[in-house]
């Protein structure tokens, strides 16, 4: 049977198993919306700004592991989506974004609401397509999902001119894709894997450094098995948190700019480093020259060859899928009679415990004002570590990462690579829609939340009972912190004067709003939010210490052992 392009788009999404589509209509996609109206296979979630549609789809993907899907109209709809696309790209999130385009004869004519979407998004997508012929539509959408989800995941844009949504052709959703130009490697090189296993067993001061690839590649079980088998100290990047259970004693906490002393020092001073799905980001190792001062051998497992030896030379590169490669490594370790050098290992752990004993995450627990760290600790207790925590960008993000002890993957959902303020609330929506019964908390700042606050309206429409945990310090705190440390306390434009009354604002959108200004009220408020108001969106406005800073901190351009401590 012949279908219109619009019918084909909707059929493809249905056949791809999509359950939630996040979007916003407009002229170029009206034909598609008309078909969305007629179908029941998936729900369409109408956001209040296209950026939020993309963040919600992105977080949906982060929480579920499935490809997130968003749809926007041409022109301003498309440009509004760009921040969301770049956010997903930097964190390697599988996503398909469908954008409307002006009709093919109008392309290039500066037509109404025309932008070169393929051109604008080229540097921030894994791939993109402009579909010029309805006969290519189904195969292109299939490819888009395939490319988004395989290898190193990433967002794919499919730009569809309006006339293509009207044209008709036979519909057949392809069952599989084969592309001569795209064949990601998943199985690691067996010789390299052997070398890696050997090197791990020879280590005197080993260190395991895990990243977002462990979460993206669903390899938490393998990481846990490997770490427990070897008894080696383990750290994680911001993006890998939850890949290895944080409360475990073998875990040294997050590393990097705001990482713990023990993680950063062990990273700097280890003799064998196993990097797993982590990309030696500048926020992680700081200055690569400083990092290279200490001699160590590095094994690096990553599905993307371009992540390997990009910022740091490695000795044993292994291109492949984390889970598959670690399975092989573990097999070899079981078969090998060599035991790790217990004596050296003990000495190494003794050293690490000395670093750990400095208790770098301590903070003033006696203060009369609410400490932001305390709110996160209480959030962890009240939710028993079982919530999905999304966050925005700033100090609150770092405190959430440091003090919520993530022990499962896909629970910590934040924008690491792009650092997009405004991500948190739409992200929480995406997660809550994926898991209606789960506890979902959006940890945010008064600066960030205002970047997509309009989504409180979407939350009302869908009755999403997520909790907004606003750590309201009255400052663009992360900016303020840098100005305090590096700009002699000249606080240029980091004070958010004339903040709205967040309680009234929450109420205006039909939600529950509570302001908390005393430490003793923190826990009861959280209990109410997750108890009494379980089924409501609760906006918790915690007035926190405006001068609190995130520690430890490695100043930009410095090395891992050059931390500023409290």
């Amino acid at each position, binding site marked *: 049977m012949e279908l219109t392009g619009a019918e084909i788009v909707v059929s493809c999404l249905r056949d791809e198993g999509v359950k939630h589509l996040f979007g916003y209509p407009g002229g170029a996609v009206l034909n598609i919306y008309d078909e969305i109206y007629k179908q029941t296979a998936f729900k369409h979630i109408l956001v209040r700004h296209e950026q939020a549609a993309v963040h919600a789809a992105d977080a949906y993907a982060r929480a579920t592991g499935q490809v997130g899907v968003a749809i926007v109209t041409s022109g301003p709809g498309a440009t509004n989506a760009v921040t969301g696309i770049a956010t997903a790209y930097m964190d390697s999130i599988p996503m398909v974004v469908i954008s409307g385009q002006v009709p093919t004869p109008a392309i290039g004519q500066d037509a109404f609401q025309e932008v070169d979407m*393929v051109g604008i998004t*080229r540097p921030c997508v894994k*791939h993109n397509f*402009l579909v010029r012929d309805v006969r290519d539509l189904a195969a292109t959408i299939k490819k888009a999902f395939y490319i988004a989800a395989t290898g190193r995941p990433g967002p794919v844009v499919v730009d569809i001119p309006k006339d293509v949504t009207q044209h008709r052709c036979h519909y057949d959703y392809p069952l599989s894709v084969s*592309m001569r*130009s795209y064949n990601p490697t998943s199985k690691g090189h067996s010789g390299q894997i052997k070398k890696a296993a050997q090197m791990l067993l020879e280590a005197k001061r080993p260190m395991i450094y895990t990243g977002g690839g462990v979460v993206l590649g669903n390899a938490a079980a393998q990481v846990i098995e490997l770490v427990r088998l070897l008894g080696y100290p383990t750290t994680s990047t911001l993006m890998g948190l939850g890949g290895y259970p944080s409360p475990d004693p073998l875990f040294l906490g997050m590393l990097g700019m705001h990482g713990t002393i023990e993680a950063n020092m062990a990273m700097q001073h280890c003799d064998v480093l196993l990097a797993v799905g982590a990309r030696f980001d500048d926020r992680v190792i700081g200055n690569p020259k400083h990092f290279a001062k200490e001699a160590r051998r590095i094994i690096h497992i990553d599905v993307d*060859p*371009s992540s390997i*030896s990009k910022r740091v030379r490695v000795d044993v590169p292994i291109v492949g899928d984390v889970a598959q490669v670690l399975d092989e490594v573990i097999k070899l370790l079981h078969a090998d009679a060599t035991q790790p050098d217990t004596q050296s290992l003990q000495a190494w752990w003794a050293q690490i415990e000395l670093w750990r004993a400095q208790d770098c995450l301590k903070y003033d627990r006696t203060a009369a004002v609410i400490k932001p760290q305390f709110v996160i600790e209480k959030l962890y207790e009240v939710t028993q570590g079982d919530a999905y925590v999304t966050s925005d960008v700033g100090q609150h993000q770092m405190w959430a990462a440091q003090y919520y002890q993530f022990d499962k993957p896909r629970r910590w959902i934040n924008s690491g690579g792009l650092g997009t303020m405004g991500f948190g609330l739409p992200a929480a929506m995406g997660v809550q829609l994926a898991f209606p019964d789960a506890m979902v908390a959006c940890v945010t700042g008064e600066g960030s939340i205002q970047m997509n606050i309009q989504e409180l309206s979407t939350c009302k429409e869908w009755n999403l009972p997520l909790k907004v945990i606003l750590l309201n310090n009255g400052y663009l705190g992360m900016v303020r912190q840098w100005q305090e440390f590096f700009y002699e306390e000249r606080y240029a434009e980091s004070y958010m004067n004339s903040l709205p009354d967040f309680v009234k604002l929450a109420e205006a959108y039909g939600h529950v709003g509570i302001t908390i200004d005393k430490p003793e009220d923190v826990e009861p408020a959280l209990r109410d939010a997750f108890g009494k108001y379980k089924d409501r969106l609760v906006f918790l406005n915690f007035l926190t210490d405006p001068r609190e800073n995130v520690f430890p901190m490695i100043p930009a351009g410095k090395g891992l052992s050059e931390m500023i401590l409290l």
Partner: protein
Amino acid sequence: MRHIISLLMENESGALSRVAGLFSARAYNIESLTVAPTEDATLSRMTIVTRGSTDVIEQITKQLNKLIDVVKVQDLTDGSHIEREMMLVKVRAVGDQREEMKRLTDIFRGRILDVSDKTYTIELTGPGSKLDAFLAAVDPSNILETVRTGASGIGRGDRIMKI
């Protein structure tokens, strides 16, 4: 170091801008880039001349390979190869110069394609250094216009890049 990279990519619209965009976005140096369809019309062949340290060249080849439309990448500098560039150059040719320009063209195995009262238009093919040498041999005030294609490269002997 100077590297000459060959690549085969799907002959799709926008393919060239993906490569050009990659080089500018990642601040890679690009000395020349040539592209045209191959005998298989679904494929384009590109030759890129670039400069960079070993680490940078490694990243360039990895990043090129990562482009979804790229089918194959080869750093020709890794083995022996042939590299050719074509130049059209218009020179002033009046009086004695006419004979002298003709001689110079012959020495460089060039061809005079077009003649006017005052000018010759010469075609020259060879490695870039030969074209440079020709230009160096002509008094700069007599060079009226030049156009160069940028290098095309191919491996020597049995070194074949095909899919």
